[in-house]
């Protein structure tokens, strides 16, 4: 919405007369795409009486932070926030594992590589619903139910991400790695001090993807968390949903609390994201 007011500077209009049209189309499209998002943010600030007022109004007439405060004072959203951060943090361990796997698939020749990689890719096709109970039983067996590690573990490694890491890391010149080996560097050192630093853009992409996945995960936190002190924001938000006596403003406030931090992460990383995909040979 804010960009509507931003002046559109028609640069090089003589060479590209339709550029203004392009920008207009883009702005309208962006506004339409982002409308539900802004609706959510503004609804979070509406008092109860305005929430379902008809005709609907985008902007709150009397904005209030009452519900955001309620989430953190009366309800336990502070605790859920910490849990969610922990789940995201554990997700970053998965990031490292996936980078390692992607590196091996990209830069090593070993027996069974094709088969293992096909196995990795095939897991993309497994419907989540089918794995739920077996996964739960496995976690119960190793004693990880009701732990935040258990919540993060089932989605720790994703085939999509391993694939992206592999795609990107094939572009790292072999000569660099060979040179390091000749200098006597160990494989772990090569990975940590050479490969990872060269993989900045793909790490940025994966950071955002990992953050999104961990932040928004709902099913596992709900099922694995044996008690409420392990709930994440998504589950806390679902708790607000009653059959009849729902409070729309409170729900919207909860939803907004969930989305804003992730938006901040994206804005920080977004310029590297495109770069990450570019260099990963996805073209």
């Amino acid at each position, binding site marked *: 919405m804010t960009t509507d007011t*931003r002046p559109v500077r028609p640069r090089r209009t003589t060479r590209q007369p339709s550029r203004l049209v392009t920008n207009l189309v*883009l702005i309208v499209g962006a506004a339409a795409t982002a409308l*539900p998002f802004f609706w959510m943010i503004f609804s979070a600030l509406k008092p109860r009486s305005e929430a379902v007022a008809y005709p609907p109004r985008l902007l709150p007439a009397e904005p209030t932070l009452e519900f955001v405060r309620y989430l953190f004072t009366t309800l336990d959203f502070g605790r859920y926030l910490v849990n969610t951060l922990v789940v995201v943090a554990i997700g970053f361990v998965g990031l490292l594992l996936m980078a390692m796997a992607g*590196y091996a698939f990209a830069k090593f020749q070993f027996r069974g590589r094709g088969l293992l990689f096909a196995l990795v890719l095939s897991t993309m096709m497994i419907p989540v619903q089918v794995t739920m*109970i077996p996964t739960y039983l496995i976690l119960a067996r190793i004693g990880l139910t009701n732990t935040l590690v258990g919540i993060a573990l089932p989605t720790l490694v994703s085939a999509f991400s391993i694939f992206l890491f592999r795609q990107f890391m094939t572009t790292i010149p072999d000569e660099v790695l060979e040179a390091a080996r000749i200098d006597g560097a160990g494989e772990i050192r090569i*990975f940590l001090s050479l490969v990872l630093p060269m993989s900045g853009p793909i790490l940025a992409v994966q950071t955002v993807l990992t953050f999104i996945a961990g932040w928004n995960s709902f099913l596992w936190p709900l099922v694995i968390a044996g008690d409420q002190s392990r709930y994440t*924001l998504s589950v806390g938000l679902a708790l607000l949903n009653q059959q009849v006596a729902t409070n*729309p403003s409170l729900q919207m406030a909860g939803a907004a609390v969930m989305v804003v931090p992730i938006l901040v992460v994206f804005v920080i990383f977004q310029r590297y994201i495109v770069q990450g995909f570019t260099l*990963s040979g996805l*073209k």
Partner: protein
Amino acid sequence: MTVLAPPRLQAPPVTRPSRRHRGGWVPYAFVAPAMVVLVAFAVLPILVAGVVSTTDMDISGLADPSSVSFVGLENYRRLVADPQFWNALRTTGAFTVVGVPVIVVASLAVALLLHRSGGRLASTLRAFYFLPAITAIVAVALVWGYLYNSQFGLLNYLLSLVGLGPVPWLSDPTWARFSVGLVAVWRATGLNIIIFLAALQGIPHEYDEAAQLDGATELQRTRRITVPLLRFAIFFVTVTTVISWLQFFDEPYVLTQGGPNDATTSISLYIYEQGFRYNQFGFASAGSLVLFVIIAVVTVVQLRLRGSDDH
């Protein structure tokens, strides 16, 4: 086109043995941790599901495994005999057939426009287009639920301003399919736009400039040069989008619970209901295995088609 393109623009070849390092145990050590997690939480569960699908496992069976009995292919027979299963399959197929082109074309179009626009405006707008991709599904359900609501929703209000009648967004079977699909498209485009943008940035300017000198119009250049050069990205996006439509679950689950009259019950949702609502785990496992096979076949066919396309 293939001849023109420099090697980097191609998908990285699957094998390049001559240049790869043989590291003895090292590659296994690097792959092992990720593989252990994948095997434990993806491969093993699907094997378990395979076994469970031949039993009458229900909730009492979960509590007391000795009460579970082997039923052979009975669950599969029941599945094939269930009209709701076929309905869910048809629904999923329809969503896939319509949804995949819509998502691919929409993301590509926005990416092309953003790329063309360039500059600060484009990078700001990029964030706007990415917003849906980062919104949690629970939040998505809330917001769209209010937008679509037939009594106080924003969309019907906006329509009424221009004199259009109220639309039964989620109440009419056909409209409900549209509405649920729209939210899915809305959510899916963000990441795909980014992928296309990245691919576009990887195309050297020389091609475009050369064609420009030859007097090709912009539309011609987009169609004849840019889009063909994006082949791998388009393929990649198509394959992942097909898989995600075949696993379509979140949007109907939170917006319509599969209704009205099962119009939006996808195959994943059907499986989930049979398993977790009605506790027929053996039956649900049979359904999920069938879905897994369908996805695998569709994906392999796509890979094959692409393979033959290259030669």
